[in-house]
């Protein structure tokens, strides 16, 4: 549960230029009374200056000066709103071809993706890409928001045609039908966003907001093996805690409890969880997502970067890995290139052994490639200086992803999903 006892739902939005994505978010903010008087005034002022005769809600989200000048969104912006039951975090990601990077970034922290389609244009190449990324990142739930229904006379035929086209894509993906929901709406007019549209009696489903509210975080969370990467060893060396030696970290995948038999990687030493601490409280059992401190019954060697797992549930430990990579920096990834690989909090050195193929993000297959440029997605083989303890991304998002850091600039240049 989030701070107010509300549930927390994280959403990424994707759409092409002019699909009305910012308008949709602005509408959600406005209708949930999340826009304050001074923000509405600022929007009114800006809208007037630009000569619009309506409120341009996109101005609520397009933050940077360059974006306001060009009228486009060029980076991931985070937007927050809540209803009585739910806190929402929206990662608003731009929809240009060249901004695959931003959608991957936004989607990496989200459980739900909203893909916008302009009802007049239908499924276009960009839609393929947005859905491809949702599929690659294993987003738990996709909402296909068919926007601007007011401009196609709220036609059910238009809606059904787009849905049929999209269903072809779903067939090419790993998604099941239950993970995808289609909603016809008009963000500008506020139809089916938070208020049921009178113009579309043929649509019997929920409004967008109602739909987002019935989603349960537990259903959106993956169930995998418990993984506890150690961030810091806590040694207070105070009178009261003279012999205290705790391992702090965030728990992923599944719960851990006092008495669990555990193995520390890479040493392979076994012990038992003696206690679980959260601030001044002692816990019996902690759910995934908890930032806690563990103590073990035995004096085993364990430090930052090591991983505590349940005995018998060890992940793979390998020095060479195959992964799908998305290049997020303008410096291309090349065979022979050396990087710092960060897997969770653990860092090793990595060398690119092979680029197997570049993957077309429109589901049309692969091609050979010498290098992966910014926004390219490809399959690569990496050799590592030390083994990492991983699961495949398919089994575990948190333990199956990594980033590559350039040794010279220290920029984050790639994100990888382990096979």
């Amino acid at each position: 549960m989030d701070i107010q006892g509300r549930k927390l739902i994280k959403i990424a939005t994707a759409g092409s230029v002019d699909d009305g994505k910012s308008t949709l978010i602005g509408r959600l903010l406005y209708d949930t009374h999340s826009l304050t008087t001074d923000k509405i005034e600022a929007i009114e002022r800006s809208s007037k200056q630009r000569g619009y005769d309506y409120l341009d809600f996109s101005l609520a989200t397009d933050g940077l000066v360059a974006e306001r000048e060009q009228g486009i969104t060029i980076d991931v912006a985070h937007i927050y709103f809540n209803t009585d039951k739910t806190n929402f975090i929206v990662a608003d990601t731009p929809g240009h071809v060249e901004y695959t990077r931003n959608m991957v970034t936004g989607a990496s922290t989200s459980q739900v993706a909203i893909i916008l389609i302009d009802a007049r244009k239908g499924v276009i190449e960009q839609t393929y890409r947005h859905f491809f990324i949702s599929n690659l990142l294993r987003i738990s739930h996709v909402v296909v928001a068919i926007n601007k229904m007011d401009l196609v006379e709220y036609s059910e035929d238009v809606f059904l045609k787009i849905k049929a086209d999209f269903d072809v894509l779903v067939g090419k993906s790993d998604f099941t039908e239950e993970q995808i929901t289609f909603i016809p709406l008009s963000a500008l007019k506020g139809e089916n966003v938070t208020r049921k549209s009178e113009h579309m009696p043929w649509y019997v489903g929920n409004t967008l907001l109602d739909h987002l509210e019935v989603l349960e975080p537990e259903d959106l969370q993956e169930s995998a093996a418990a993984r506890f990467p150690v961030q810091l060893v806590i040694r207070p060396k105070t009178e009261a805690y003279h012999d205290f030696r705790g391992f702090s970290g965030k728990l992923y995948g599944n719960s851990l409890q006092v008495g669990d038999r555990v193995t520390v990687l890479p040493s392979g030493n076994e012990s038992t969880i003696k206690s679980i601490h959260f601030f001044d409280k002692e816990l019996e059992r902690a759910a995934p997502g908890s930032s806690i401190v563990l103590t073990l019954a035995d004096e085993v060697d364990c430090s930052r970067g090591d991983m505590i797992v349940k005995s018998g549930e060890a992940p793979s430990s390998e020095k060479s890995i195959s992964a799908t990579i998305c290049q997020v920096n303008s410096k291309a990834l090349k065979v022979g290139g050396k990087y710092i690989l960060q897997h969770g909090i653990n860092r090793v050195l990595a060398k690119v052994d092979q680029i197997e193929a570049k993957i077309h993000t429109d589901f049309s297959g692969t091609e050979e490639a010498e290098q992966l440029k910014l926004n390219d997605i490809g399959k690569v083989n990496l050799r590592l200086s030390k083994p990492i303890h991983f699961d495949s991304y398919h089994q575990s998002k948190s333990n199956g992803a990594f980033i590559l850091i350039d040794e010279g600039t220290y920029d984050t240049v790639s994100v990888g999903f382990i096979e």
Partner: protein
Amino acid sequence: MNLFIPNPKEAESIYILREVAAQFERPVLLFSGGKDSITLVRLAQKAFFPAKIPFPLLHVDTGHNFPETIEFRDWLVKELGLELIVRNVQDSIDQGKVREERGRYASRNTLQTTTLLDAIEEFKFDACIGGARRDEEKARAKERVFSVRDDFGQWDEKNQRPELFDMLNGKIHVGQNVRVFPISNWTELDVWEYIRTENIAIPSIYFAHKREVFFRDGMIWTANEHVFREAHEEVVERMVRFRTVGDMTCTAAVLSEATSLDDVVSEIRESTISERGARIDDKRSEAAMETRKKVGYF
């Protein structure tokens, strides 16, 4: 067995604070005495308990702070046994590094940047932890959790490192430093709810009290020798409280009867003016915050 279910935002912030302690050599927590930095202190306690918070607090004092804030700061530091470093804007003025603003909207708020950058250099801080939140302001919505600054403290918004999943890349070169925002994903309401749930002590000016004020541009200003006031601007006494606590010259009050945390939380819930709406510095222009961030403002 009882299952502990975490609060995801709190767990994320604790994770971030531990990454700071692990990835940097000389981190510091920028402490203003405001509710956000007070919340950070509580989160840092939780992150390292039962060990002590492994970094000092830095307060950049404009000299125009509310006295209640300074009293609170000194009390908190003593209570928790923390290390506090104070650097004064007045010293930067005396050294001729910055010039005091004059006139109607004179404020020392922007002058803080120079004092902060000097302190970073003096102590060789490589990570400065701040309580900024993305919901505060449009330009902040695009801020990273680990935000790399160059030798001049500048923010290059077009060249930010993407942050994927919860992996934090704090690798930097000598001379660079990182601004860290552990409560990036919290809203103003989250912070207040948290303060209430955790029963965290905060300065008294957050609660309604009688104060000498005057009205200008639809905002309520503190009547005080540090705040420029024209002869015709009449001083009156009102029940007010502050929603943010910054420099006296740039923090407006709101009329309020909220004398308890419960009252404050319900007031925030009902409120239709955003927190930054009471910040005079942001009203200077639409891009005010972005412009200040580019030159190293916190």
